[in-house]
């Protein structure tokens, strides 16, 4: 029995009268690579943003190492520092170089020394293959390079779980591969990951758990074999076949 890092119970989220998420339940254990798939507007990204408290859920609870982070007053920043996030649009700090991007969180949030932070940053920048670019500003990089730096920035905080919000959706096709291969490596190293993605091949080959969302609920979930080879529900099959056609 592996430790449950993250447990979501009866989570719901509404924007005004529009209910985006309804009664979501799922668990992320240490070392899990969970892919969340589904059509646009099915609530995948909102779910991820709720988990990182970028959106406040309307009801339900999120347990992080058994502690409900929604009932705890304040401390959202501290929780976020332990849950990394990689965005669709990179969100690198434009006023800093690549290296500074990976250092600032460590020195300001984790209060680590500058030398130590620099070593840590270099370690992860080397891992994603961006070490030669440490002096560049984000505007000087390609999309794929920016996303790899964003992954290094998140990793430098040594998060317990790393959330990916459609990390390759804003990239040119030829750059998707470099980001996915970094993510593959990370999964291979046992990093706990929660990935919202349209890359079905990645979801099928890399993750050990696949969640299919539809209309704000978890429609079906299971191992990649179950979902991709023998889905139980008609809608899942329909969604996947639509994707395979494209």
């Amino acid at each position, binding site marked *: 029995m592996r430790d449950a890092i993250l447990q979501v119970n009866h989570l719901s989220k509404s924007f005004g009268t529009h209910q985006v998420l309804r009664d979501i339940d799922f668990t992320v254990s240490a070392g899990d690579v969970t892919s969340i798939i589904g059509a646009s507007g099915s609530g995948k990204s909102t779910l991820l943003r709720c988990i990182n408290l970028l959106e406040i859920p309307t009801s339900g609870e999120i347990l992080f190492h058994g502690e409900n982070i929604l009932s705890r007053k304040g401390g959202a920043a*501290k929780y*976020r520092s332990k849950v990394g996030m990689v965005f669709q649009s990179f969100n*690198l700090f434009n006023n800093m170089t690549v290296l500074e991007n990976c250092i*600032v969180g460590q020195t300001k949030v984790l209060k680590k020394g500058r030398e130590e932070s*620099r070593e840590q940053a270099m370690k992860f920048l080397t891992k994603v293959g961006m070490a030669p670019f440490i002096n560049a500003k984000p505007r000087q990089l390609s999309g794929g390079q920016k996303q790899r730096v964003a992954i290094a920035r*998140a990793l430098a905080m040594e998060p317990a779980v790393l959330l990916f919000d459609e990390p390759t959706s804003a990239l040119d096709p030829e750059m998707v591969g470099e980001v996915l291969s970094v993510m593959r490596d990370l999964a291979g190293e046992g990093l706990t990951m929660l990935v919202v993605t349209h890359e079905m091949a990645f979801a099928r080959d890399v993750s050990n758990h696949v969640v299919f969302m539809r209309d704000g609920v978890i429609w079906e979930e299971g191992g990649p074999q179950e979902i991709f080879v023998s889905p139980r529900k008609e809608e899942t099959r329909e969604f996947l076949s639509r994707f395979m056609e494209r």
Partner: protein
Amino acid sequence: MDKLAQLGQDIAALWARSGSQYLHGVANTLILAVVATAIGCLIGFICGILQTIPYTSRDPLWKRFLLKLIRVIIRIYVEVFRGTPMILQAVFIFYGLPYFTNNAMQFTNIWVAAILVVSINTGSYMAESVRGGIISVDPGQTEGAMAIGMTHVQTMVHVILPQAIRNIMPQIGNNFIINIKDTSIMFIIGFTEFFAAHKGVAGATYKYFPSAAIEMIGYLCMTLAASFLLRWMEKKMDGSDSYELVQDDSLTMTAGTYNHPGRGTPFDERNPEAVKSMLREELRRQAERDEAIRQGQLAEQRREGGIHTPNTDRKEGK
């Protein structure tokens, strides 16, 4: 043409007579404009930051009420001081204080009054500029900062404000140039800046037009210098368009990667041991390279020798 020549002579005469008065005025104008713009920017930044503190329906009532109250107060401040002439604000504040305190309190130092008026006025414009500057920064930047666990203040200080300041630099420049010119109305409360010098000199010599010509040239020079300076600062803030790739070679890597290597680390140039080890490493590489070249030459010679062999074979065959 002779009129122009006469104007030149008049200006020269005026300058000879009261050049120091004009220069004194220029100095006062510049000091007032710089100080008041700086304080005004500070006021603007404080207002802008206070105005953009987010609150949600989940926050406690007192916090929401306080933030709402702050926004209302700033709104009133901005509308009042942006919506009335500065010349009136000067009179209002300068004479208002003694009026309300029955002359118990007065502005004994004219500098304090002048800086106060111009700062408050500039602040009301800057509050809106800063708010605009903060809004103009991509919300993704805030999310990126929040996602690595930064608090609102940390996000503002390290991520949003540096970008907002760059975005509103043209606005700051505008305000600075406007202040250089508009401080001229401070003569109304008896502040002796550049325009007051004109009033004094012209009143004494009756040479209104030549003195006004000096003023025109003087103000234009100040504002041109200011805009040049601001452009330069903007360029400086943008930084270089290019960047250096950090090579894989260990020595260049050291130079590029570690801008300020800490004392005692292996990359510290002041650490003789580290320098020695780096040199040793480099020498070793050099030796390796030489060795490789020598090996290559040997192989080459052997191959050449190999070419000769068939000849000998042929001979033998004969």
